[in-house]
């Protein structure tokens, strides 16, 4: 059976990324024990759960950063967990975006250079890369901050720059790990409103790991990770 037909048979229509029965341990400590999850194209899926439940491990397996001990990860008809590291890393760079709790901006660069960075790293020349980056400042309420160094930005502004950087390559899937975790509730809300508007416009799927219900409320659906397994909270399927 080919990879494509295998997915077509098993996955519900519209699925862009899914993990089946993932098992992953770190030494003697199991993190995932048969975790199954699937996200539809264009959907914002919140992954909730207490600290240590395995939700970040699940995100890293879905994103092809970690390889599960057992189980399968599929992205758009391709099996990700058995893919060699080089094509997997290309796929992560070209088709996935990432945003984390602390923006992890490069302090030596200006805000617009940070946003343009993924384009520069994939070979786009400086002029076109910056031209591509600039509209994001208006879109995310950051007008006038293009030339600031990251140290001159507030936490909320820095996180919006990080969001712009994660979306500038127009990824098919955005992996967001506690993107509002370090922000006060008003700034967190602004980030989520802008994130939702931007991904809706681009048709991006979002896997949003959060322990905050107010952040998860911006998603289309929530699942809960507990003891390394996934259960549905709202909506039909994990």
């Amino acid at each position, binding site marked *: 059976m080919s990879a494509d037909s295998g997915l077509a048979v098993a996955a519900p229509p519209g699925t862009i990324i899914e993990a089946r029965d993932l098992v992953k341990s770190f030494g003697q400590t199991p993190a995932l024990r048969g975790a199954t999850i699937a996200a539809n194209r264009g959907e914002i899926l919140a992954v909730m759960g*207490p600290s240590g439940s395995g939700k970040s491990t699940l995100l890293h397996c879905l994103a092809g950063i970690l390889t599960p001990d057992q189980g399968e990860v599929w992205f758009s008809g391709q099996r990700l967990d058995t893919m060699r590291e080089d094509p997997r890393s290309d796929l992560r760079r070209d088709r996935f975006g990432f945003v984390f709790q602390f923006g992890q901006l490069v302090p030596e660069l200006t805000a617009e250079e940070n946003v343009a960075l993924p384009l520069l790293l994939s070979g786009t020349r400086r002029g076109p890369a910056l031209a591509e980056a600039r509209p994001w400042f208006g879109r995310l309420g950051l007008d006038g901050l293009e030339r600031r160094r990251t140290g001159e930005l507030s936490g909320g502004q820095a996180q919006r720059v990080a969001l712009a950087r994660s979306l500038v390559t127009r990824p098919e899937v955005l992996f967001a790990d506690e993107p509002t975790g370090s922000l006060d509730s008003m700034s967190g809300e602004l980030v989520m*409103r802008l994130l939702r508007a931007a991904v809706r416009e681009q048709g991006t799927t979002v896997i949003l790991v959060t322990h*905050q*219900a*107010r952040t*998860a*409320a*911006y998603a289309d659906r*929530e699942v*809960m990770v*507990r003891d390394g397994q996934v*259960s*549905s*909270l*709202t909506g039909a399927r994990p």
Partner: protein
Amino acid sequence: MTVPLTLLGLLEREPSHGYELKRDYDMFFGRGKPLSYGQVYGTLSRLARDGKAIAGPAEHGEGPERRRYVITEQGVAEVEKWLAEPIPPEPHLQSELFAKVVLALMLDRPATRYLDAQRGAHLQRMHELTALKEDGNVIDILLADYGLHHLEADLLWIDHTAARLDTLAEAVRQ
């Protein structure tokens, strides 16, 4: 807080006298608002009238006449339905939800699943309030915020309760 269903839940553990039910109710759920004997016996006779419990024969001994009450199948079904059904996600549901969790643990029922059902109902309401904020004016936004903050506090409490279920089970099964 629904007293009849809570007493019925306590009754599912084992056939009990009214004073035993009052004692356990006051210990776990009363918290400064103990039930009166009148409330307990009034509730028990209504439960018996509605076919949810059966009053045993009068037991004569020292002191006042006593009856042991036994839950019926209809009563068990009622408890099961109540426990499994999420409470409408309004703020400040703590006392009823707490009663459900404690009873579920006493009765070896899936407390985690009930908490998840409640989480789902809360999150669903938070979705609605969040959507309201998208299109609303400042008044809508502030009112929705009030609801969101309280629901979030409830959810935190649900998380903490879920994390302590084993300890709680030990405490209530003694």
